[in-house]
Every structure is written in structure tokens, then in C-alpha cells.
């Protein structure tokens, strides 16, 4: 047990989505779910983040951004794909400019299904992300 499991800081990035999952991600911060109980912070800054929480799919224009954000996160780091679009492209998968899920661009550690994903499952995904974070830390340490 290291400090990582007690202090997972999150960077939330919205690719091509309908914003449904984003609303649910923010719902996790509200008094009803209050993820700060577990030390989770929404940092908005890749350099401070441990977990990259991506909603929505990857399109031609945001590949560069997703890659850049991921590259700027210091190790150890994990990626949690939230919602159908982030996992596989979802209902936008066949659209002309959509590449597909986040794993087309960066390695994804946890897939959270749902359209939109429920706050409970998002929190569950983060918890699994923490486990992946721990595993990565052990590997590098």
C-alpha cells in the first residue's frame, strides 16, 4: 500500500462526446458521491495528474492533444476510458472523422462501459485504475 491509492489525482479530458459522460464525471465530485473522500482531486493539469480520465472518442483533430496530455503526465500513470465512446467510439464510431476508442492512440488500463457511464461505475473504474497505478509503481520501483 503506497500513497498512490490514497491520493489519486485526476485529469479529465473530453474527446468527441455528447457530454453525457462528462456530466456524470462531474457528478462524482458533488456532495452525493463526494470522491474527495478517497483523496481524489480533479486537477485539470496533466503534470499533477495520476489518472487520465477520458470521455468521448478520438477524432482526427484531437489525436495530437490526447497524446500530448498523456506524454506530459509524470510516471506512474494510468488511463481510464469512461463510456462507450471512449471505449470503442460508441455511436459515433462510423462518423467520417472518428478514429475510434482512446486505445487507438494511447494505452488504456481500465474500460468503464455505459452510455452514459453511471457515477458508481466511474468511481469503480477509478478504484480499478488505482490498482493499476499501484502495479505500475511496483514495476518501476
Amino acid at each position, binding site marked *: 500500500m503506497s500513497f498512490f491509492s490514497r491520493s489519486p489525482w485526476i485529469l479529465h*479530458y473530453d474527446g468527441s462526446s455528447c457530454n453525457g459522460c462528462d456530466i456524470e464525471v462531474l457528478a462524482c465530485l458533488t456532495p452525493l458521491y463526494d470522491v474527495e473522500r478517497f483523496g481524489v482531486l480533479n486537477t485539470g*493539469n*496533466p*503534470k499533477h495528474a495520476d489518472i487520465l480520465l477520458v470521455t468521448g472518442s478520438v477524432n482526427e483533430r484531437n489525436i*495530437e*492533444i*490526447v497524446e*500530448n*496530455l498523456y506524454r*506530459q503526465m509524470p510516471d506512474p500513470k494510468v488511463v481510464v476510458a469512461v463510456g462507450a465512446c471512449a471505449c470503442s467510439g460508441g455511436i459515433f464510431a462510423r462518423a467520417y472523422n472518428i478514429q475510434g476508442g482512446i486505445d487507438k492512440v494511447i494505452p488504456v488500463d481500465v474500460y468503464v462501459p455505459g452510455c452514459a457511464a453511471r457515477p458508481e461505475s466511474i468511481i469503480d473504474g477509478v478504484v480499478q485504475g488505482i490498482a493499476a497505478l499501484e502495479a505500475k509503481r511496483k514495476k518501476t520501483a
Partner: protein
Amino acid sequence: MTSLIAFLIAFPIVVGTILLLITRASIRNPIVLVASAAIAAASVATVVTFGNGDGVFFGLPGGIVPGQALLAAEIAITALIVVIGLMNRRILAPIMAIAQLAIALFLEVTGRMPEADPQRLFWFDRLSMVMILVIGLIGTLICVNAIGYMHDYHRSNPMIKGRRNVFFSILFIFLAGMFGLVVSNYLPMMLVFWEITTVCSFLLIGYTRTPETIGYAFKALNMNLLGGLGFGLAIALLADQHLGLDFAKLMAGPASGTLLAAVALLAFAGITKSAQMPFSSWLIGAMYAPSPTSALLHSSTMVKAGVFLLLRLSPAMSGSTVGYLVTFVGLGTFLFVSLVAVTEQNTKKVLAYSTIGSLGLIVGCAGIGTPELAWVGVMIIIFHALAKGLLFLVVGTIENRLYTKDMENFDTLLSRLPRVSVLALAGIAGMFIAPFGIVVAKWAAIRAFLLVPGGQGAVMILIMAFGSSLTLFYWGKLLIKVLSMRSISDYERSIERRISRYEWFTEGALAVGVIAVTASIGLISDRVVGPYALSAFAAGPQTFLNIEPAMLVVMLAAVLFLPLLAVWASTRKFDAADFYTSGRSANASHVMGAALGGSKSVTLRNYYLEGVINGAMMFRVGTLACGAILIAMVTVGMVVR
């Protein structure tokens, strides 16, 4: 020792005359080097042979009194001003010069001018000793630096007609004037040296002879001649009332009556020369001259003559209304120029405002007239001369390499000119980070102001609190720019190699000096400045600052931190593009991909507090306020007697 002092005054004049006749750099440069070394050695020798006593007085060999020679010198100076003034169609300066000469002639002809005591022509004490070292070491380093600087200056400014023989000639005569000034005890003789420095600075500021610099040169001349006129009137007043013209005797204790009036006039002269408001504009104008001129005027000569005089007057002003008003001119200047400085983008001007502010602190200290504050004043003179001399030379070097004086263009200096950055950081650290530099002086000043009774004490402390914070702001901005880093090309890396060895040597020597003086502050305080302050005020033994060894180590670390960091960091490799730009990729040259394709460049600009502080208005307000206080000061001095 007496012959050494005679050497220090006469030798630079001889060198200056020789240099005037030499137009070839290959002959001139060795002469400048050797003469500078000789002057520096002589000034150190003077101090060494002086030992560590209180003041001594001496005259010329054979008991010669320089009565007629002084008058002749004054006529020559006046003639020079009249000729140059009329050639440039300026009338004010010649009128003031003639008025001053008329006072001297009147005193001489009517036989009112008291004869000098042949054995008390010169006065050498610890304050003179500090000044001799400042002029002899820092002044000569600036002369040597000018060899390298002026070479590059004329190459990058081909329109300006090279008259480097005149330039170096004036530099040396300037030094002679300063040496004479700080050891004079007979007031008319001091006035002659005073006017020599005025004329020399006038010629140096106007060196490039563009309409702009000629205007600034005359502004400097007019203001300083006005001060000189005050000096002359003070002499006339003293002569008329048969008080004698022996400076040391007059300034031995608190003045009253006619003497106080004379003190007020002399303080007026000191305030003009030290560029206090309302006379600050001449020193700002001097910024348009080549950088060695700025360095010389700001660090070791000229303005230091003004505060030197005020410190000499300090025991006489002690406790008087005149003294308090002088203090408020100084502190008011400190506050207002600091307000102006935070809005200023030209680095040389920021340095100039900082100089005026530091001088304001010294003036503020001198006016109160206590041993503690005299101690503070001399400490600031030492630190300021070293650090500011260094900074002006470094900014001159940067200007010749990067062709800019704009603070905004100094960014990533640490990557572009790493070794110059080290020197710049040493200068800035010595100027304001050094807790034993200006900061210690500010601390000691606040301590002393706490003891000033009544509301004026509270106002002094308020001014110190706000003024100090403002200095933090503008130095912080400069530091941010100097300390930032980026990747650079091989071409940019080669720029630094073209700096001349004269500049490396002189700036390096000053940087070492800053650190050495910081390290030995306890010694300087105990052996030189402390005893000076006690003997000047005939005060009993006391310690000025209780500096514990542990504190000294911590604080020396503070001074060394940034320069050493720069030395270390400039050799390290790093990924300069790895900063956060909202997911967009940016490269090391600050070019970002734009949203709809193409690219945009990022510009980072310091805050100048637009909308909150109006620099130009602050300058006007300060000029008016300090001008009013100054008029009150002279009036009180004249009326109260």
C-alpha cells in the same frame, strides 16, 4: 600618504591631458590600462598608509595656499561653460556659471574671502577612505571596461562620430575631480572640484552630440550649476558672517543660525548632485549616454559626490527642521522613483530609478543625523557602488550583444548569455537580495526611524514599507527574465564569445568584489564604517549590528545562491518544450499549433501595473512634492537663523 593623495589628484589630470592628444586605440588602450592600474594601486596604498586613525588634516608642501589658482580654475571652468553654451545657443548655463564666478570674484575683490589654513587644506578620514577606494577601484575598472565597450559601441553605432580620445580624457579628469572633492577641507577648493565633476558629467552625457543627448547634457549641466550656485552662496554667507571656510570645523556638531542657513544651501547642492527629486530628470537623461558613462555617474562618481556631501553635513543637520526636511526629500524620492520604476520597461532606466531610490535612502539617513543612520548611509554607498557599477556594465555588455535595453528582451538570458547572466545575478543579488546589502541598510534604517519622535517617524516607516516592496517588484521582474531558459542554436551560443576580455575582467572583478564585501561586512562595519560614524558624531562606543556567525553563513548563502545556480544550470541539458499549453504542442521557440491549423507564437510579458500606477504621473507628483519640501527646507534654513 599626503604625497599619494596629491598623486591621485594630479596624475589623472596628466593622463587625461595626454589621452586627449592620442587618437590611435593601439596606443591609447595600454595607457588607459597602466594609468588605471596605477590609480587603483595608489588608492589602495593611500588607505594602507592611512592606517586606522580618525581624521587627519594636511596642506600642500611648503605651506602653499591655492587662492589665486582656485580663482583661475573657476574662471577657466566658467569660460568653458560659456563657450560651449553659446555654441549650442543655450543661455541659462552660461548665466549661472557667470553668476557663480561673480560671487567668487566679489568675495575676492572685496577681501572677504577668508584665507585657507595652509595646514588644513585637506581632510582625510574614514569616510574619505571609503570614497577613495570606491573611486580608485570601481572608477578605474569602469575606465578599463570602457576600452572594450566603446570599441563595440562605435561599431554598432556607425553614425556617431568617434571621439574616444575625448571620452577617455574626460573619464580620467572626472576621477581627479572626485578624488579632490572627497579630501577637500577648504570649501572654495571643494567647490572647484565640485564644478569639475559637473562639467565632466556634462561632457560625458553629451558625448554622442545628437540633439537628444545635447538636450540631456544641458539639463544635467543646468541642474548641477544651480546646485553649484547654492554651494557658492553658502560660501558667500559663511565668508560674510566670518564663520570661516574650514569644512571639518563647521560640520563638527549641530548647526544653528547663519551656519544652519549655509548648511541648508549646501544640502541643496548635495540634493541636486545626487539627483533627488525634483532634480532626478538629469540622471534619467544621462541613460542615453554610453553605458560606462552611466556606470561611472551612478556608481562611483557624481551622484556619490552629492551623498558624500550630505553625509558630511549630517552632524550639522542633526535634530534640526532642515535635517528632517532633507530626510523627507530623500525618502519622498525613494518612494516616488520606486513607483515609477515598476512601470518602466527600459532596463537602464529601471537601474537609474533604483539608483535614485538608493541615494534617496542615503539622503534620508543623512538628514536625521544620528550615528546609526550615518552608518547605514555609508554602507549603502559601498554596496550600491559595487553592485550598481557591475549592473550598468553588464547591461552595457548585453546591449552591445543583443542590441536591446528592453527588459522584455532579456528573457532566457541564462540560456543565451550564461556567463553574463552569472555576473548580472551577482549584481542583482548584491543590490537587493543580499541581506547584508541594501536590505540590511533598510532594516537598520527602519530601526532608527522607530526612534524618531512624533508623526514624522510613522510617515518615514510607511515610506520604507511601501518603497521596499516596490523595489522587490521590479527586481523580481528582472530576475524572472534573466533566469528563464530555453534551447538555443549554435549561432546564439557563439554570441557570448565575442565579448572583449576587458569587459570580462572588469565585470568579473566587480562581481567578486560584491561577494567579498558581503562576506566581510562585519569587518567593514567594525573597522571602518562604525568608527567613522562614532567619530563624526563624537558618540560613545556602541555596536551597530549584532551579526551572529550563523546568520552570516545563511545570508552569504543567499547572495551566492543565484550566481552559483546560474553557473551550474547553464551547462545542463533539458527539454525546453516540455511545458503545459493545454494539450497543444509547443516548441522551444514558443511557437504553438493554432486551433485551425498554422501556428501562433507565444509572447510572455511582465506586468507593469498599468491602470493602477501611472509612472509619468508619479514622477510629476514626486517632483512637485519633493520640490515643495526642498523649497521649505531652504526657506526654513534661511529664515530660522
